[in-house]
């Protein structure tokens, strides 16, 4: 099989060249530091940019589901600048200090949430050779890092000294910790299939076909379970009971204002993107192009599309799926959320894991 497409846009050699060039004019530690700073800035910029794109997308998509047009005034006909205006507004808002709040934890919480989100965000395989955090236990690291977020939510709820936020945080805690099990097991399923925990390795193992096709029934089932659990993990409807505005006004971030609230808001949208990105990596081949066996001409055309386009395209497709779900269903109640996890998803994902292992052993997956 023709493997050359992997090298079309591989930027790893380019990055290596840049690194060598920098080392030739300065000591290596300085080069590393500078690179670190540049990459960090790029991450944060991408993070902010993607958040804006996602918020705009959410507003337009949800409007279309609701027979509306959505933002259409700021910045021309499509309302393209609406989100920029919103961000600008939120930046200029006062950050309120609460009287009886635990000041330190109250201020720390939004940073914890955003930190977890950014670290996870950095692990995504954007492009061939453009993975920012690369380690051989990558997917395990993602699971670990994303769990920091719940700490921020619990702290926010506790430290605000409000009854609404407390209930929201406790709900969120119960829910996210439960759903991490399903996520863990479905991720494990795919690790079994790919035979590696390295995110880059998982993507590379899909060069001759995406996991969701190669793994057929168990992979598709795992994909669905992962999407549901991931949706819950991102605190989005129908699992948004932590911030159920009809019950708790805004849940754990009721008492936050200005950019502190903005952090929660950004993190929520980026978590949506991260969930989708991981789903893309595990099931839809990451940045791998779409190939149909036998159609060489078609496959060659697909190869000319850069990996980052593939990755973003697939991820936004999953994002759209999740938005579709969010804007269709009513919210679950806390006991139903837990019932769904412990009585349906958990057993199901365990069965999937067993089936996948059996399939792998007997070579039933391709």
């Amino acid at each position, binding site marked *: 099989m023709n493997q050359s497409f992997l090298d079309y846009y591989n930027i790893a050699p380019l990055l290596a060249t840049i690194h060598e060039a920098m080392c030739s004019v300065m000591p290596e530690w300085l080069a590393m530091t500078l690179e670190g700073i540049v990459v960090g800035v790029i991450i944060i910029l991408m993070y902010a940019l993607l958040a804006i794109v996602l918020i705009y997308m959410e507003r337009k998509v*949800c409007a279309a589901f*609701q027979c509306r047009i959505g933002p259409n005034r700021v910045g021309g006909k499509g309302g393209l600048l609406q989100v920029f205006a919103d961000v600008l507004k939120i930046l200029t808002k006062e950050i309120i200090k609460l009287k009886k709040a635990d000041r330190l934890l109250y201020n720390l919480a939004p940073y914890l949430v955003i930190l977890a989100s950014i670290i996870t965000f950095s692990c995504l395989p954007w492009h061939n050779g453009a993975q920012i955090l690369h380690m051989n236990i990558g997917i395990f690291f993602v699971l670990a890092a994303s769990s920091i977020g719940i700490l921020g939510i619990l702290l926010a709820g506790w430290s605000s000294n409000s009854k609404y936020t407390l*209930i929201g945080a406790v709900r969120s805690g119960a829910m996210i910790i439960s759903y991490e099990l399903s996520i863990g097991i479905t991720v494990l399923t795919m690790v079994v299939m790919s035979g590696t925990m390295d995110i880059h390795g998982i993507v590379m193992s899909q060069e001759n076909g995406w996991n969701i096709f190669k793994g057929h029934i168990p992979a598709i089932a795992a994909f669905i379970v992962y999407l549901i659990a991931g949706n819950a993990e991102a605190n989005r409807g129908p699992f948004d009971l932590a911030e159920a505005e*009809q019950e708790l006004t805004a849940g754990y971030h009721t008492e936050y204002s200005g950019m502190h609230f903005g952090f929660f808001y950004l993190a929520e949208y980026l978590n949506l993107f991260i969930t989708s990105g991981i789903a893309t990596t595990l099931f839809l081949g990451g940045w791998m192009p779409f190939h149909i066996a036998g159609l060489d001409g078609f496959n060659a055309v697909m190869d000319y599309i850069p990996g980052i386009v593939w990755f973003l395209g697939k991820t936004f497709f999953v994002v759209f799926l999740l938005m579709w779900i969010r*804007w*269709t269903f*009513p*919210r679950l*109640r806390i*006991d139903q959320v837990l019932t769904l996890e412990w009585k349906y998803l958990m057993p199901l994902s365990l069965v999937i894991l067993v089936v996948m292992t059996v399939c792998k052993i007997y070579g039933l997956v391709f």
Partner: protein
Amino acid sequence: MELIDKILKIAPNATVLDYGQRIVELAPKDFRAVAEALRSDKVAPMDYLRDIVGMDWGETLGALYYLESSKDYSQVTLKTATADRENPLLPTVCDLWKTAEIKEREVYDFYGIRFLNHPDMRRLFLREDWVGYPLRKDYDMNSNPLDLESDVNADTTEEVFLNPDGTVAEKENTVFGKDEFVVNIGPQHPSTHGVLRMRTSLDGEMVRKVDPVLGYIHRGVEKMSESLTYPQTLAMTDRLDYLSAHQSRHALCMCIEKAAGIEITERANYIRTIMDELQRIDSHLLFYSCLVMDMGGLTPFFYGFREREMILDIFEETTGGRLIQNYNVIGGVQADIHPTFQQKVKEFIKHLRAVIKDYHDIFTGNVIATTRLKGVGVLTRDQVVSLGATGGTGRASGWANDVRKHHPYALYDKVDFKEVLYNDGDCFARYMVRMDEIMESCHIIEQLIDNIPEGDYKVKTKPIIKLPEGVYSASVEASRGEFCVFIESHGDKSPYRLHYRSTGLPLVHTMDTACRGQKFADLIAIGATLDFVLPDVDR
């Protein structure tokens, strides 16, 4: 009139007045015995207390009790009064009819009558530090200057009771204990459907008690009406339950027409009936929207609003108003129907019948929705009758209480329609009652819309309308229950006392019964399916 004979047997001193309607006047000590006997009657127990209308007759303070039997729909009106204006005391009936718990508080709030053995004698609408009782005729309008201090709700309440030796004593009851986790829901809250405040005691996610705090949109409509002429009082009714604007105004017009002996034309009756039913569809569509939104589904919310918009356009074309239509007037309706009215209504019904499937597809059948609604907030038939929870709430628990069926008015005895009844009494039944009623209303309109007879839309009335002395009442089936108007006229051009039976007040009172032991999220769903509108509760 065997009912009256029965009363006279228990209380030989009772007088039967023919004063606009038949009223049985009782001394306070007889009243309690008569109430108990009527309530526990074997054949037709008077188990539905329609309303308690507090009154100030000058020398005496008292109340009118409107009773109805849920078995044979017979009605009786009792009157009792006390001459002690300093410390007026009447026996409570809140152990016989649960709805009296809140209605007696209303009477206490406005007239200062305290009810013996009522466990919770707090003010209902007004601030706890309010001076005087505003609906008394000798109330000084300047006694309560604008107070900007925040009103702190006490966690205790007082009860007045009678010692065995006949002396009156007071004791303190607790509303919320010191260690209870009380969450304030409202008055500014996304899902209280107005400015309702519910102090909710939670045990984790479980609701232990709900204490509604009312009065945030109290405008004193009843007090205001006492100084308005009859046509002017009409302007207030649209502003009570704004989703039953037509029906409320219909009730008041009917009551005044009945008292003044005005006969309205057939055409006006047709138009009124069609408008009432359109209003009901409007209200139920909004109910759907709000219920779905309260449960977190924002998309179907817009479906309801999309179709409701078409009704509002029809209203606006004919009446000139969308929410506040001002359409019914004494003697008919304000203006003839617009030439396009019939065609547009028919188009709308056709459209609604087509899209209602989407409503059910996206929400009714949905597994999340059904599991959240089924078996939640169950009310038994006895409970709803005792609570006076009329309308869809009552019918969902198997209480056939449709005024249109059992005390027909306008054209309801001529059209064919089904009284939608469910027996489960849970949130899902309450939801389905409304969804089915939309279809029934369409059915009623379809029977009438092509047959509107020619004729005047309004009969000429005297420029100044005065009602003969007496007590009058009229009730209609509003969008969310029985709406009654009670007028006591002393022959002037404005009413001596005008009272509205709020459809929402018993429903708000039902919250506590329905929510106990349910989850916090259920409280929102129960509130949405009970479907109250606050301007109508507070008046």
